[in-house]
């Protein structure tokens, strides 16, 4: 550890003055499970052929909670599983008649032409999901039925490598295109991309897409379906989930939260956040089955109150963000919905009461429980919380933050810090898995992006005018993948060219990516980074959630 001080490119004066040893944003307690998605990736990619096929069943966290609560858990489980079986049987019998029709093979001849059709040609990134029997389940563009041919080829490639070479197919590369393969349980996921994302980043996206499916079905059900009928057409169970995957893919392309495996928090004054948290705790602490209470707004976390011992993984929160953002229906009515959080417990459902806090505030409250018939007590709790927040003026504070009111220091941090040569930055606190960027994408711009994407998703050479957050983040992808490269990782990258200067820096506590003006001097950059870190430290209580409240 003697090297840590030298490790730091900042002038020695930088860190020694700060009153606290901790990196900006770090706290001893975290609501999020800070497992690094890159480390996870590395271990997963190391798995042997045998293990990758069978997703090991860990003990279920949900049943653990249920048994702790001690009530009626047995009965609950039984009803649930018998339910599943019934549903599935119906579904399967329905599919038998159908699948025979699908297999007339007529499409395969036209398959090449279809991929070259205007609907599909020149897309920046294709994503295909198919069953290990080669049946199409999802395609980002075009009609899956017409892609039976290409899915057949993918399945054949995967199985040839597996069976004849005793190996696992990972990727294929041409000069302008990468195809990445991920075999997970009974599914095969493929991304074919012309973007600048690295193979690792694409695999992580495919893992997310897989988790999105698990979140709708649970892993147990997914595995069981294919154990019983290898040729099952999963689409019939996933209706509605296509839209979730569509949105998730767009979300992942533009939000740095995915790049860094972290969660963005809505910047709020410390006191306001405390009030919100207390309002939730005081209302809910008596509800025994409640596991998580989560308040989110605009893909940002406002607060998370949890049952003792349990934390959430950032990727589960991302799925919740995606669910809320993709479902207009939550806006109009209180909903009761089963949600599986794959990292928390892939084998079972939590039940969620989901509703917007009030008509004049776009914050959404999720109350997740293991109790399948708790709608009414939770609905009541929600109304109490909502009233409390209104009375304590918290709703106004949330709205100010969401609308990026000009008076807030976090609305335009670069101006507030006063370092003109910094154009953009992105900071992740590793111990709490939270991030902050200088120019968070506001909701309407996100909508724009989504709109644009629906129409195209094509490879376009656009002229750069003013770069947006999305463009900077796109730029950081390459740095991110170099820093986390499994075979030759880096701790620091300083790159300057005629367009800009970028500094990427990882320490034990944080990850930082900064874009400066072109041809920046090194010592000037070091001084600027030093000031930036001090600013983040000063504002940390506002931009990060520094404690980990429990019921």
């Amino acid at each position: 550890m003697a090297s840590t001080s030298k490790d730091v490119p900042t002038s020695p004066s930088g860190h020694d003055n700060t009153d606290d040893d901790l990196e900006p944003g770090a706290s001893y307690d975290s609501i999020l499970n800070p497992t690094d998605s890159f480390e996870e990736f590395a271990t997963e990619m190391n798995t042997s052929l045998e293990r990758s096929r069978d997703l090991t069943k860990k003990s279920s966290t949900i049943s653990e909670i249920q048994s702790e609560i001690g009530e009626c858990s047995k009965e609950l489980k039984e009803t649930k599983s018998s339910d599943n079986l019934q549903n599935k049987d119906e579904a399967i019998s329905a599919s038998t008649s159908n699948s025979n029709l699908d297999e007339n093979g007529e499409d395969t001849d036209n398959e090449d032409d279809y991929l070259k059709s205007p609907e599909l040609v020149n897309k920046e990134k294709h994503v295909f999901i198919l069953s290990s029997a080669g049946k199409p389940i999802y395609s980002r563009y075009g009609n899956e039925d017409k892609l039976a041919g290409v899915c057949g080829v993918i399945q054949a490639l995967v199985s040839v490598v597996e069976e004849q070479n005793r190996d696992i197919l990972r990727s294929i590369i041409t000069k302008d295109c990468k195809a990445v393969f991920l075999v997970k349980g009974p599914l095969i996921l493929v991304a074919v991309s012309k973007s600048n994302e690295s193979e690792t980043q694409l695999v992580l996206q495919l893992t997310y897409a897989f988790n999105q499916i698990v979140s709708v079905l649970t892993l147990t059900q997914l595995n069981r379906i294919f154990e019983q009928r290898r040729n099952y057409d999963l689409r019939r169970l996933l209706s509605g989930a296509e839209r979730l995957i569509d949105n998730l893919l767009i979300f992942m392309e533009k939000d740095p939260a995915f790049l860094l495996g972290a969660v963005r928090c809505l910047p709020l004054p410390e006191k306001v956040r405390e009030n919100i948290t207390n309002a939730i705790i005081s209302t809910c602490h008596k509800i025994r089955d409640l596991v998580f209470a989560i308040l989110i707004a605009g893909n940002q976390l406002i607060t998370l109150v949890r049952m003792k011992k349990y934390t959430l993984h950032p990727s589960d929160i991302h799925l919740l963000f995606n669910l809320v953002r993709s479902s207009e229906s939550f806006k109009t009515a209180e909903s009761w919905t089963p949600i599986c959080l794959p990292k928390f417990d892939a084998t079972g459902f939590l039940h969620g009461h989901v509703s917007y806090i009030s008509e004049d505030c776009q914050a959404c409250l999720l109350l997740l429980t293991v109790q399948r018939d708790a709608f009414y007590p939770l609905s009541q709790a929600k109304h109490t919380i909502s009233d409390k927040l209104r009375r304590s003026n918290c709703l106004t504070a949330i709205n100010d933050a969401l609308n990026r009111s000009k008076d807030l220091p976090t609305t335009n941090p670069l101006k507030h810090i006063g370092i003109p040569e910094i154009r953009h930055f992105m900071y992740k606190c590793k111990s709490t898995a939270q991030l902050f960027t200088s120019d968070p994408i506001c909701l309407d711009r996100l909508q724009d992006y989504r709109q644009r994407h629906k129409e195209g998703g094509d490879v376009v050479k656009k002229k750069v005018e003013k770069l947006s957050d999305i463009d900077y983040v796109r730029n950081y992808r390459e740095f991110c993948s170099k820093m986390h490269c499994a075979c030759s990782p880096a701790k620091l990258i300083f790159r300057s060219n005629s367009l800009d200067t970028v500094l990427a820096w990882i320490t034990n506590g944080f990850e930082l990516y900064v874009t400066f003006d072109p041809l920046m001097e090194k010592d000037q950059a070091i001084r600027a980074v030093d000031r930036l870190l001090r600013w983040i430290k000063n504002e940390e209580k506002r931009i990060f959630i520094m404690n980990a409240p429990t019921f």
Partner: protein
Amino acid sequence: MIDTPHKIDSFFIFNSNFGPKEGDELKRILFFYPNQINTDVRKTQVGLCEAIVRFMTTFSSEPCEALQTQSKRYIFFQPEKNFWMVLVIRIPYATKLSGDSKDVVEPSIMQDFMVSSYKTFRMFVGLFKDIPPEDTYGICEQFFNPYITSIDVSNDLSNIIQGINYLPLEKNSFFKVICFIDLLQVNYPQFKCISFVYNDQLIWNGLCKDDMLTLYQYLVHSLLPKQVEKEIQGGAVTAAERHGRFISPPEGIHSDEDLKKLNKVYLRREDDNETKQYYLVIYRTLSATVSFTVDVDTHVDFATFRALDTFIGPQLSTIASSIGEQCTIHALQNAQIASPDHKFLYFNKLNLAFKTSTPSNCMTPSAAVKPEVLNIIAEIHQDHKSLGKYGEIIIKTPDEYWITGKSSNDREFYVVMQKNANLKEIADEVKRICEMQMKGIFFYPM
């Protein structure tokens, strides 16, 4: 030193059009290494590659470059339409190289190895498509088998980029070389001088850039090491060697019979715009090696060669010894500024000029660089976009290696050092090395 056969899992060449019908799959395989692999395995390997290539054409108009599986990387190269060369190396997917990382070769080095194997093939044998299909199998076997087993690839800084090591000479010596070449071409117009090499450094070149690299590599990696070995075994320099001799054909030219053994090569000379077939004649005195081309239509006779020998021999040996003296002075100067705590690499894309702190052909084990570091340099080198016309990148690895890459116009400069320092100190150090080693070459930003 790394033994190549151990690195290479397999290497094969195929053309799907050679056996279009089912059952004819074996005909598609023009060459397969290692030889002991049975035909079923060959067929599945080639079949997989055919499928991969076809699969990617639905998404990209660019040819397939690589396939990565959990344990291996398949590197693809399509030198001519429908002819595919595939090199399979053992390299694990997305795992930290550790412990046995000595056994892993940087994939870009292997890619370059495959491309130069083809270029050498094209120089000596010609295009695949010009060879009658039924002869292809035998010719490939004859050429590629020894090629693969003879070449060794090490994780050396100098292998990251394929370049030519030029010998800087002071004006007078350089003009002596030029005068010698001019005089020779005036007296023997059918002989065109295409290269002048001293030790393993190039002084004069009469070929187009690409072919020069191929010929240079053939001389430096294959032909000359064998000659040097012979010279060493022969003990003291014999009188004949002082006066020079023909080294291609290898046994020299002592009679009309020997002329039949002249190598034929396909090359494009600097002033020509097409590749033509020539006889390749190579002459060596002391450490100087001169190569000539002779049109294949020219009538060659032994008398001309004997006259040529008496013409070149004495002149070349004078020039060679004066260059030798200069080299000694150079070496002394270089030894003074060389320092063991850093390694550098310079490359100019326009003339393929190449300079490195680790002398090429050096067999010292310390010359090997960690594969992680090589990987980073190879990535910077291949990623032309990120540095643009002018740019600089500094990367620090977890084990305190600092890798700096600079690009300025078409010149590249890399420095590797391992030390405990900060960004500014490293940048200053690199600047110092750059000024010292690359006097007069301008890098922006400084």
